[in-house]
């Protein structure tokens, strides 16, 4: 009989595996168990009521991260010396510091969406920043745009390498990019050479000035107001036209009030940012204007959002993240999508690295890429992106990156050392993951009640 048992064991195993594979997507299923309120609501009032129901059922959306941001702001405003936390100078500084976390987080979201992770982008970002910096040194002196393009191309190539190894050799992204983290750290040290750093602080080299100007050059106030007007008009106008058009032809659309509220929010937020940046924040010489890094971050955000939410490629990314087998059966090129996700992740990280280089005036071997990548994952998760895949938006990188930047900045103002910043960020990350897990559990309970 033993032989028969053995054989049956051998026979059963594959179907067990198949059963497990089929059960797996159900974990993500629970993540979105509650119908989003904007789909069903006919009026703003109904929307708010549905939204409260949803929050109470455990799926709080962006509420926790916004609440965290508000709480952090209030606390630091109260405890910071001379209450300088909310001063224009510090707010601009805070955004400059957050920009690296934000863009790194937005990069990480591309792979988190697929249920993958990239643990190498800290040093990939550093390589991007270093290459851009090296290419504008006097001996090479490429035009700034060529330096940036070449650096980003190199980062994209690194991402492609990761993606190809992961998809072709069928290795877990966790391990491959962990190896990449060490590998690119080493490569970075080699690139920096005996000098151990690259600086872009020259005041005569035009191309270096452009790079450092990403953070330290400011847009003329008049132009920034005009730019804001154009952006709000275009964005608000297109949102309004789309929603009213859909409403008129009987398609699913949010209530009028919600569309208006969104447009109003974009306008108010934009006005606040431009107004704050256009207050003089210099102590001796006047410093006025929106730093270029603000529109740069917004461009990265906008491109990511369009790619993910309005293009076929993004639709397929969500499909692969939600149910890879369903995507494959629908004819989606799952391998290509996964490879491209790593390309986009590293490319975006390269942008973050260039911002970092601009902000610090260069990069040395002291850069802690291993820590930055954890901040990137933290930013995405704090913002609301799920580690399981299938759920995440580019805006999560902005929100989560701001939270991390705010903590970083506030503790710095208090004169607290790096150790407190690490502890605080760790706690916030833990809270974010807990909220994510709770909302999933709560939602599952909700669905059981409903069925």
């Amino acid at each position, binding site marked *: 009989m033993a*032989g*028969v048992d053995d*054989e*049956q064991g*051998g*026979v059963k*195993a*594959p*179907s067990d595996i198949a059963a497990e594979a*089929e059960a797996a*997507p*159900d974990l*993500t*299923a*629970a*993540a*979105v*168990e*509650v*119908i*989003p309120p904007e*789909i*069903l609501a006919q009026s703003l009032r109904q929307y708010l009521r549905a939204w409260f129901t949803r929050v109470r059922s455990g799926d709080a959306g962006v509420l926790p991260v916004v609440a965290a941001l508000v709480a952090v702001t209030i606390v630091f405003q109260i405890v910071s010396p001379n209450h300088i936390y909310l001063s224009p100078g510090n707010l601009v500084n805070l955004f400059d510091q957050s920009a690296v976390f934000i863009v790194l987080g937005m990069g990480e979201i591309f792979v988190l969406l697929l249920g993958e992770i990239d643990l190498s982008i800290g040093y990939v970002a550093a390589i991007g920043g270093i290459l851009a910096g090296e290419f504008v040194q006097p001996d090479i002196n490429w035009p700034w745009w060529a330096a940036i393009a070449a650096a980003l191309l190199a980062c994209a190539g690194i991402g492609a390498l990761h993606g190809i190894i992961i998809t072709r050799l069928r290795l877990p992204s966790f391990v491959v990019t962990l190896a990449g983290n060490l590998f690119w750290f080493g490569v970075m040290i080699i690139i920096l050479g005996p000098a151990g750093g690259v600086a872009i602080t020259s005041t005569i080299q035009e191309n270096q000035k452009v790079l450092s100007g990403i953070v330290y050059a400011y847009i003329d106030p008049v132009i920034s107001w005009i730019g804001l007007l154009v952006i709000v008009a275009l964005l608000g106008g297109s949102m309004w036209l789309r929603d009213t*058009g*859909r409403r008129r*032809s009987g*398609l*699913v659309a949010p209530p009028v009030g919600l569309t208006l509220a969104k447009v109003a929010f974009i306008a108010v937020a934009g006005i606040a940012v431009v107004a704050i940046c256009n207050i003089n924040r210099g102590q001796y010489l006047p410093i006025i204007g929106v730093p270029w890094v603000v529109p740069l971050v917004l461009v990265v955000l906008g491109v990511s959002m*369009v790619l993910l939410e*309005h*293009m*076929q490629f993004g*639709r*397929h990314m*969500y*499909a692969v*993240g*939600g*149910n890879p*087998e*369903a*995507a*494959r*059966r*629908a*004819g*989606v090129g799952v391998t290509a999508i996964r490879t491209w996700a790593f390309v986009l992740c590293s490319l975006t990280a390269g942008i973050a690295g260039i911002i970092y280089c601009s902000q610090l005036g260069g990069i040395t071997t002291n850069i802690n890429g291993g820590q930055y990548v954890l901040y990137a994952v933290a930013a995405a998760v704090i913002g609301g992106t799920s580690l399981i895949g*299938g*759920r995440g938006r580019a805006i999560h990188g902005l929100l989560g990156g701001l939270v991390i930047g705010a903590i970083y900045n506030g503790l710095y103002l208090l004169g607290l050392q790096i150790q407190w910043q690490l502890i605080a960020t760790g706690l916030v990350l833990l809270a974010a993951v807990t909220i994510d897990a709770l909302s999933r559990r709560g939602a599952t309970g909700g*669905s059981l009640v409903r*069925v």
Partner: protein
Amino acid sequence: MDMTTPEGGPAGGAPGSEGRVLVDPPAGTEPLLRLRGISKHFGAVQALFDVDLDLPAGQVTALCGDNGAGKSVLTKTIAGIHQPDKGEMYWEGRLVHIHSPKDSASLGIETVYQDLALADNLDIVQNMFLGRERLNRLFLNEDSMERAAAETLASLHVTTVRSIRQPVATLSGGQRQAVAVAKAVMWNSKLVMLDEPTAALGVAQTRMVLDLVKRLKDHGLAVMVISHNLNDVFEVADRVAVLHLGRMVAQDRISAFDRESVVDFMTSGRSSRQVATSGSSQGRN
């Protein structure tokens, strides 16, 4: 390769038995899809063994068989999800090789899978158009897709979903199945395969799917339905094919069967009350 043991290993059928069923296509007509000698194994499991199957246009073929008989594997092989180890497929008389779901879709084959192939995080419209999104230059044409999806759902009388934009994760099992069926019939296909399409459905939705199957047939499509419900089979099928432990043990016009003979074939691979089939395999026991 033959793992069957005299002691009665799980694969069952008598070693060396000639499992071929001779199929006579209706005179002069080439079936839309003709399978010859399709075999497929997973490790030690021989899921399909030398399977022949004809799917003529304008007819509903019911594929019957016990749990684990290989019905879903056969469906997925035709759909391009599994590659057969050997055997040929002829589409409209032409030898074809289906390597991927894209290949089968481009031939005009649509499939409703038993393990529903929907992405839970996407909404109904996004699922129905997955892989075939309508574009407005570079961008998704959501309006057009939503309208088409709504029309298809309405034509199938799928009225219980609250919003066509709700994530599939928020749907009940039956609603999901309805969406999966709608997804398959939205395209101008020539062959629709439905793997237990009514298993999770209520009375009204089952009615709807059966009516839909008849309508597809009236439109000249070839339809293959897998069902354990013999009432459904005898209501809609023109032809019946029975799999037993991976072998095709009977295949003929429905008039050649009655309920008992189908059950016999399903459970033992043979029937004493043979009606009109020519030659079937003789599974033991």
